């Protein structure tokens, strides 16, 4: 039987795994022995199970293979030499535009009292792998061997949700292959007692690897974080740090994320860059941002708005008197179908869409899709029942469809409550989505009433419209206040919204205000009912703008990039100038 990995004839000691078994529990109180952990969880797994790497049935010789392992990073020692990244790329044969491990940096001080802090980061094989829980296709597995969180690209359909929830930018969405892949902990090397390729290659003696909570020889600390690293409470990442040299009070990033890190009690805290910092282009000047508003997430703007319109229409249509059931049950599946189709076009591998329900156990994305698909199917069945004049059945199907739609919208909200994305992680998602459902639902019901010449009752619908706009507006107000208050990535995104997108932002606010006035006027009967349609139109444009802001502006709590690599401003520039057409530039020319 072939070896899992061929060791070198005289493998140096630095490449060999330490046999330090570590304590029983990690700092979060979780058992480090993973067999014991599974036993405690009531589903004990056996020892000595093969990992099945490349269908090889052999079991590694490493006696600590059932302990949770993790990386160790001595930030004082990292020289930013890219050896870890190159070793990783060479071993995993990743193309230039992808990387399982990346080195970024933050810097601060004033010449010559200047310091750069390089941060080398791959997957942290977390105790609480949010990627695994988020993935709708169940492509992820956390193994009882080394605690490795491994992902199967052949299962993945390329929705990219794992790349949203991961705070460390570990999962890599490949725009060429249309699927995600990521760090595999070099489990083949671990099985023969060797540290991962990146660790073995480290030239600064910065990277190390072993059972979590163990401190390598010659090192003292096992800190949970360093400046620039996201809050470890989000996922309990299996990485430990040493960083002893005092750093400057303010650290900036070389990439285009408008963030900086300031020394505070107990560590560094991220926040928006200082005003007028020349490191960030156009900072502080108010623009429309229209170029950036048109993004890869357009499909999701369409999907969410259409789905909310569909569910809103169904809910209102069932409650408001005089809505013809047949057309209603035709319109709802049409909207949902269009929305789901739009969401499918957003996938890297659209033909694998059916895998979106694989992970109902954990994934809000799977549940969102299941709820909406059920709503579509039930409403569609109801429509067929209306054709056959089975009115009881149609009524029952429409009620069930409404329930399924509400479930779908609930999980749609849950999809965006992501701790690694503070701009989203706020109850405003509820008001935005519910508001949109009410606005589009009211407009749709009115439209159906008009089209089928029943009694058009605009007064209650105007109240619905007003409530929808009001709910959305109140949410936006609280969200703005909350973002500025929490600081960090949320405040940085809010500042981008009010500066780089400032004109669009005020246009959106004006549209909301004007549409609310129209709705109020119609509701109180003080203006002509034609204003209802004007209100709907303005509220609809505002909702679309809001949704585009929502997707484009979010700043993840992710690792800093470098000046070229992992810098979206450089990637955009390379695409515009045509430099990205050279594959060795490492920027995919088609965007992402």
């Amino acid at each position, binding site marked *: 039987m072939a070896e899992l990995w061929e060791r070198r004839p005289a493998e140096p000691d630095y490449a060999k795994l330490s046999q330090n078994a570590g304590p029983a529990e990690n700092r979060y109180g979780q058992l480090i022995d993973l067999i014991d952990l599974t036993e405690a969880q009531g589903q004990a797994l056996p020892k000595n199970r093969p990992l099945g790497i490349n269908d090889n049935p052999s079991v590694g010789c490493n006696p600590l293979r059932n302990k949770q392992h993790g990386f160790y990073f001595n930030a004082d020692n990292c020289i930013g030499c890219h*050896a870890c990244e190159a070793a990783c790329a060479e071993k995993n044969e990743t193309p230039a535009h992808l990387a399982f491990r990346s080195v970024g940096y933050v810097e601060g001080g004033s010449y010559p009292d200047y310091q750069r802090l390089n941060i080398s980061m791959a997957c942290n094989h977390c105790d609480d792998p949010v990627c695994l829980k988020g993935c709708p296709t169940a492509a992820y597995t956390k193994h009882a061997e080394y605690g490795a969180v491994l992902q199967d690209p052949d299962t993945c359909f390329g929705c990219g949700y794992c790349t949203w929830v991961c705070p460390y930018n570990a999962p890599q969405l490949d725009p060429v292959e249309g699927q995600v892949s990521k760090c595999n902990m070099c489990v083949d090397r671990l099985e023969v007692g060797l540290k991962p390729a990146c660790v073995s290659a480290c030239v600064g003696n910065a990277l190390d690897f072993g059972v979590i909570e163990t401190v390598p020889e010659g090192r003292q600390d096992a800190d949970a974080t360093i400046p620039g690293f996201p809050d470890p409470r989000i996922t309990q990442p299996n990485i430990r740090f040493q960083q002893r040299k005092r750093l400057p009070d303010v650290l900036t990033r070389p990439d285009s994320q408008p963030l900086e890190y300031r020394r505070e009690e107990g560590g560094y805290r991220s926040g928006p860059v200082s005003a007028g910092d020349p490191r960030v282009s156009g900072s502080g000047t108010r623009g429309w941002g229209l170029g950036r508003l048109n993004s890869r997430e357009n499909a999701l703007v369409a999907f969410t708005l259409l789905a909310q319109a569909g569910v809103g229409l169904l809910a209102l249509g069932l409650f408001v008197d005089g809505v013809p059931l047949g057309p209603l049950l035709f319109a709802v599946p049409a909207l949902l179908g269009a929305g789901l189709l739009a969401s499918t076009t957003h996938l890297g591998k659209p033909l694998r869409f059916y895998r979106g329900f694989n992970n109902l156990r954990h994934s809000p994305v799977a549940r969102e899709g299941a709820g909406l698909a059920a709503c579509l199917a039930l409403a569609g069945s109801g429509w067929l029942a209306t054709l056959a004049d089975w009115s009881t059945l149609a009524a029952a199907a429409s009620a069930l469809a409404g329930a399924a739609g509400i479930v779908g919208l609930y999980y749609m909200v849950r999809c965006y409550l992501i701790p690694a994305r503070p701009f989203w992680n706020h109850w405003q998602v509820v008001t935005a989505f519910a508001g949109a459902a009410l606005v589009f639902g009211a407009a749709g019901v009115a439209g159906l009433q008009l089209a089928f010449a029943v009694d058009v009752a605009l007064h209650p619908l105007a109240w619905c419209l007003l409530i929808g706009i009001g709910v959305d507006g109140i949410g936006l107000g609280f969200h703005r206040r909350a973002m500025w208050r929490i600081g960090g990535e949320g405040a940085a995104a809010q500042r981008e919204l009010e500066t780089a997108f400032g004109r669009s932002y005020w246009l959106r606010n004006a549209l909301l205000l004007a549409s609310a006035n129209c709705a109020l006027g119609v509701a109180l009967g003080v203006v002509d009912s034609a204003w209802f349609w004007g209100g709907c139109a303005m509220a609809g444009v505002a909702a679309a703008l809001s949704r585009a802001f929502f997707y484009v502006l979010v700043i993840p709590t992710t690792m800093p990039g470098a000046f070229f690599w992992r810098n979206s401003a450089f990637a955009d520039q390379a695409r515009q100038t045509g430099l990205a057409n050279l594959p060795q530039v490492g920027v995919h020319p088609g965007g992402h």
Partner: protein
Amino acid sequence: MLFGRRDQKPIAIPAKPVVEWKYATCNYCSVGCSIELGVDAAGKVITSRGHGEADVNRGKLCIKGLLEHELFDSPGRGTRPLLREDTRTAYRPVDWDHALDHAAEGIQSVQDRHGADAFAVVSTGQLMTEEFYTLGKLVRGCIGTNNYDGNTTLCMASAVSGYKRSFGADGPPGCYDDFEHTECLLAFGSNLPEQHPIIFWRLKEALEKRRFPVIVVDPRVTMFAQWADFHLPITPGTDTVLVNAMLHVIFAEDLADRDYLDAHTNGCVELEALVRESDPSKAAQICGIDEDTIRTVARLYAQAPAAMSIWTMGINQSTHGSDGVVNINNLNLVTGNIGRPGGTSLSITGQCNAMGTREWSSCSGLPGYRLLENDAHREEIAQHWGIEASFLPRGIGLKQTDIFPAIEAGEIRGLWLIATNPLTSMAHQARIRRAMEKLEFCIVQDVYEDVETTAYANLYLPAAVWAEKSGCHTNTERRVNLTRNAVEPYAQSKPDFWIFTELAKRFANASTMNFAVEPEAAFNEMVKLSKGAGGALDISGMSWDKIEAARGLQWPYPEGTNADTGTPRLYCDGQFPTADGRARLIPVRFVDNNETPCADYPFWLNSGRVVEHFHTRTRTGKLGNANKFSPTPYMELNPDAARDLGIAQGEFVRLVSRRGDAVVLAQLTHRVPRNMLFVPFHYHDCVNRLTLGLLDPYSRQPAFKQCAVRIEKTEQVEAGRLNVARRAY
């Protein structure tokens, strides 16, 4: 699985189906790392790994070495010889016979019309030593031009010159093992973590075991400077002032090693007299390092039981590079730090085989450190090669940096470029382009047919690369190491060795000469020649098999030696290869002839290397996982200066000097002072459009790192277009 799926998912990790590992020495820089190349059943090199038993790298490789096996089939490789009579017409493919006939006829035609020296040959530090030896034999023995040099004049000439002036011979006296013994390390103008990562790792390993002070002299806050115990942010070009001030303190405080000076050196009185004028308080005004720091560092260095200096281009690429080297040698002689474990004057060399070309290429004389000026040496080599001694010139010809002005002046009419790219690497590109346009006949021999020089050539000869060939390199610590052939040459490309021997057959002298057919036979010829050389360069105990078994052997390695590694240090006995056996202390006066910042051009322009690229990017610019870390030119600019100029991060700017302009992206960082820019030199049509490159009087090495520029804002779309147009890779 802990949680996730109930069924076990397959785990797919790229397998490396290696059937044989081939031994090689890295073909990039001078560290000399041993690499094993993994060859699959189809004969393709699919992976590489550092050799765990090699003393140099002990299993480690830097980013370039880790990805080096990808270059065999990287884009732009030359597939067949290309010929055109007129450089304004298109190339047509020809067979090798035709190409080599044309090369020989072209060379002879230029020589017939304008004299033997009107044809120049400029080579490199990238070939195998056997190839250098054979090229020297061809150029000196058959072609007979005296205008023959390597691009090592751009990187190591000042170190060579300085070693010769101080110690009487070339050859770095120290080794990497000195890190394990030193008590103080002083680095001048060396960005070790980026330029020589594996040497840096050796230093780091030594420091993990034992703390000792590290002092870094560099105008830029490199990772090395940031990481050092002392960073001396020196004013560009003033290193001799700093060292003189250190020597002043050492003599004034009686910290010199008088016993060593008395026993092994000459010229101490003159040196002491000169440095008496270099009071640190005065020196501080010039070099920008405060007097207290100068005193502290001087005392630290002199009082350390063993102290060593390393340096790179910050010293060598200067109008007084040779003097800078001499002064570092002075410092080490005065403190008794030569030939002592942990006490040395170690020039960290540039290219993988810069040492090989110094030793055996005949660029600076005759093989084995022999001299053209020496009648006996000429006789000996002429007899060995089977030519008339009178065929050899009685003195050295022009250096690379003087060859281009001679082309401009019309003295040289033909040029053969071998594995070098002056259209990116030479200072003051406008002049180089004009010179290239004036050539009547130009041959480019290179691994890549997209190298920019082919635009000016008549004949392109596609060369094999690295482990498509076999042969030796000599590294910074005089270690001769081997590359075995691992893979067939790409398409119709040929090993440089083959090209040289085949071309030689087309010259008259070849009838009486004997050219080795295989590189190993050429090595054995060098082994024989090294016996009588007289100096330390003795490899007479070496063979390819012995070298591979030892993973490299350090010369001197005389016949009969059985040591595992060879000789780690030179001059341990205090005997120097000078007439009286004593080292020379040479007083160095500060010369300030640099172009310095002024009102019109207010910024210092500094240039240097980044870790992911090698030289002119002909190789690393094609490898995505290296190139992506700096795929296009940029400058480091101080954010305070950027604010004054209204320049944002990532914006294109136009740099203007008295020689030309260049477009770069602005990277704002406090790594550089407010009046200095740093631009990596790797990019075509970039920093060397701006540089002045005044020459060192001894080494003829250009001062790449000292000139003045201004920054102008530029139209972004046009700048982006221009930037893309200026590079094919």
